[in-house]
Each structure stands twice: as structure tokens, then as C-alpha cells.
């Protein structure tokens, strides 16, 4: 933890879930709440990691644990995932990894809520910070983030750069975010690792989708679903999600945005 004398700021980053989780708080709050956030992130990993066979999600996937006997967090996440599956017409489906034609790869699991749980956990951490009195902060896990308040250096809101899928020295857009969540799903992250649950084949057509909206768990799932649905159907579907806006970057380099997305762009 970096706690500069005379500066009401707490910054902390840890490696979790195979990515880096960063917390930056610009209020004078008890920094034990940040410890609690990271303890929560470790618990989330213990419950939901698909890289370790002993987690609850893996035990449920193997039929060794009933959902009714699982931790309340697991029940909550599975409920949200089911909502997202129904809302997306099956484009978001945590059972895609169990399809017979999906090739074996590290981290593949019969039940994989990774497309939602990261956003869900970051949103929870944001709620913990708010409850502790924080009014200006961000929490980001590998680029899925909540950003609240107005940092001194950017009075209009936090500046969020959207990773450009192919140009490593550029961002594709710069957003001003205050009080919203931003999630990006991309096929450039670990290759074609996002499976279309309807076919078992890798999603195609969109290189990345960024979604801005009130709830990071939902934004995270929406971004994954839109990526699966593709440039036309996915972005149309996204445009129909009340309260959420999105930007998709297609493989042919076309950028498609929903009508209200530009209000976040600087």
C-alpha cells in the first residue's frame, strides 16, 4: 500500500484471478476497508476460480456440490448468470465450456462464470468503499472497473482509456466516467477464448466490446454476450439494453456504438 504523507489517497494493487486488481481512493477513509476489499477478492477466487479443482464452482460443475449447499455468493452469482443467459437468448451461458466440441484448454470448466464474476466482485468492492464513506475512487480488475466521483486532476470524471485491439500504443477511445461501470470483453486477450454457447465455436466478428452502465456485473455479461452475438446482432441487442451503452470494434475495424455512447467520450 502506498499512503503518501499529507495526501488523502490510498492506492493498492494486487495480482488476483490472473490479472491485476487496482484500488485508488481519493478520500480520507479507514484504509482497513481496502484490506477488506482484497480479502473479499481472495474469497471470490477461492469460490469461483476455474483454475483450481477445489473451488465451489468446480465442485458444482463436477456434481460434487449442490447449489443449495453452496455459499450465498455462489448462489447469487449463479442467479445473475441465469438472468443474463435468459436476457441474451443464450449468448451468455456459463455452461458453454461443457459443450462436446469445445476444445480442451487450460481453465476450461463445465461451469465458468468468469464473464460476470469479475465485474460482480469489483462492483461489490465499490459498494464496500461507498459504505465506508469513500466518494471518489475507482476499482479495476484487468480493465473491468467502477469509477466514482471526480478526481482532482480530472474534475469532469475519471478518464478511462479503451484498449485498442490491434494498436498497442493507442487507445480506441477515451471516456469520462463518474458513477458508472465500464467493462470490456475482447478476443485479443487470450486468443479466441470466448465460445459461442449456441454453437460451441469461438465468437467471431467483433474484436472487442466495451459497455458502460450502472452495474458492472451486468455490463461485464453484456459485453461478453454482444461479442458472441457479433457486430450486427450484438450491437443491436446492446442498443436495446436500458441504461447501458456500448462500443464494439469489429474485425474489419469498423467501430459501432450505441446511440448514447458518445456522451461518455471526451
Amino acid at each position, binding site marked *: 500500500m502506498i499512503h503518501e504523507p499529507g495526501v488523502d489517497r490510498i492506492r493498492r494493487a494486487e495480482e488476483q484471478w490472473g490479472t491485476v486488481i487496482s484500488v485508488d481512493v481519493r478520500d480520507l477513509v479507514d484504509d482497513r476497508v481496502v484490506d477488506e476489499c482484497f480479502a473479499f477478492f481472495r474469497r471470490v477466487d477461492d469460490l469461483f476460480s476455474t483454475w483450481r479443482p477445489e473451488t465451489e464452482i468446480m465442485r458444482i460443475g463436477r456434481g460434487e456440490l449442490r447449489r443449495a449447499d453452496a455459499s450465498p455468493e455462489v448462489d447469487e452469482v449463479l442467479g445473475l448468470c441465469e438472468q443474463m443467459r435468459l436476457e441474451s437468448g443464450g449468448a451468455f451461458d456459463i455452461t458453454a465450456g461443457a459443450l462436446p466440441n469445445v476444445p480442451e484448454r487450460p481453465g476450461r470448466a463445465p461451469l465458468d462464470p468468469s464473464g460476470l464474476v469479475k465485474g460482480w466482485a469489483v462492483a461489490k468492492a465499490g459498494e464496500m468503499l461507498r459504505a465506508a464513506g469513500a466518494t471518489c475512487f475507482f476499482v479495476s480488475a484487468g480493465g473491468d472497473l467502477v469509477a466514482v466521483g471526480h478526481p482532482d486532476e480530472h474534475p469532469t470524471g475519471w478518464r478511462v482509456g479503451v484498449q485498442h485491439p490491434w494498436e498497442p500504443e493507442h487507445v480506441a477511445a477515451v471516456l469520462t466516467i463518474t458513477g458508472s461501470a465500464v467493462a470490456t470483453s475482447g478476443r485479443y486477450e487470450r486468443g479466441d477464448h470466448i465460445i459461442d454457447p449456441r454453437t460451441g465455436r469461438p465468437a467471431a466478428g467483433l474484436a472487442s466490446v466495451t459497455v458502460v452502465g450502472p452495474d458492472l456485473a451486468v455490463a461485464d455479461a453484456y459485453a461478453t454476450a454482444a461479442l458472441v452475438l457479433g457486430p450486427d446482432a450484438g450491437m443491436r441487442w446492446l442498443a436495446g439494453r436500458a441504461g447501458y451503452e456500448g462500443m464494439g470494434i469489429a474485425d474489419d475495424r*469498423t467501430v459501432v456504438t450505441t446511440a448514447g455512447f458518445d456522451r461518455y467520450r471526451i
Partner: protein
Amino acid sequence: MNRAIPAAIITAIGLGALASFKSTSGLPAKSAAAIVVPRTTVPATGGPPPTHNSSPATSPATGGPNTVAPPTAPTATTPPTVAPGPGPTVAQNRTIMGDPIDNQYGTVQLRVTLQGSRITNIVATQMPDSHQRSLEISQQAEPLLQQEALQAQSAQIDIISGATFTSDSYAQSLQSALDRSHG
């Protein structure tokens, strides 16, 4: 940890060069300058991309894939990039090695090139590649993290939203190089 980087750079301003040898990195100075955006400049929409012409705006057909048609049609535009701005005034490049940092997947060590107080390149001289998952991390983490560190100071971006796959070891090695840069 990544957010600590701009602050470390600010602290480095005005301090003398510790290591004053020329950049040994692969990134030419011109490329380094090209990522610099003046702090007051709003990133402009770029022109057509270098490799393909953008396809024309497509009007979506009626009807969503699963649910009702959206109230508003999405709009298609050409892909944006942050426009390159003028380069910084000439300052001597210096290259500093970060500490080798071990994590469960292997060792990460970075070589950081600074021009004045600005990071112009980050090269991983060691990244873990011992097994499948490590390989995935090392192949993806380097360019994305490099981009984040470079971009964060060039466009005053606080946070990057992307499908990043990063490593705290990377950030630690970078931080140690920056600490070393102002001795």
C-alpha cells in the same frame, strides 16, 4: 500498482539522469514520440486505418437476435485512434533495469527507457514461459502492460478498460526501475 506509475514519473522530474547511456530498446525514438499526446489535447478521431478501409456504415436489419428491436440503431463510424501529437523536447534517453520479480509463474524483469522523465519504452527481458498458463500470461501481458504504462502518461488516462491480462510482478519490476531512475 499501475496507478503508482504516473506519480513516480512526476517525482522523477527535475532529477538528474542516473543512467545516461542510450536506449537499447527496440522502439525507435520516432515511435516513442508518436504516442505522446499533449496534455490539453482531446484525442481526435483518426483517419482510415493503415491496413484496411473501413467498411461503410451498415444499417442494421430489423429485429434483434433474441429480443425486441432496440429503440435506437447503433451508429457505425471509422475506428478512432488517439492522434499523435508533437513529440517532447529532446531529452536524453536512458535505460534502467528493474528488479527481477518472482511470482508463481516465473520471473519478470523489465528494462525501462526514459526520455527525461517520460517512459518511452518497456521491454520485458524476462517473462515466465514455463508452462501453458504462464506462456499465455507472458505473451499477452507484455504489450498490454507496456501500452498501459505508456498511454497512462501520454493521454492523462487514469484507467485502461481492456481485456488486459497483467501481472503484479510486472508492475513491481517497473516500479523498481522508476525508483532507480531517480536514485
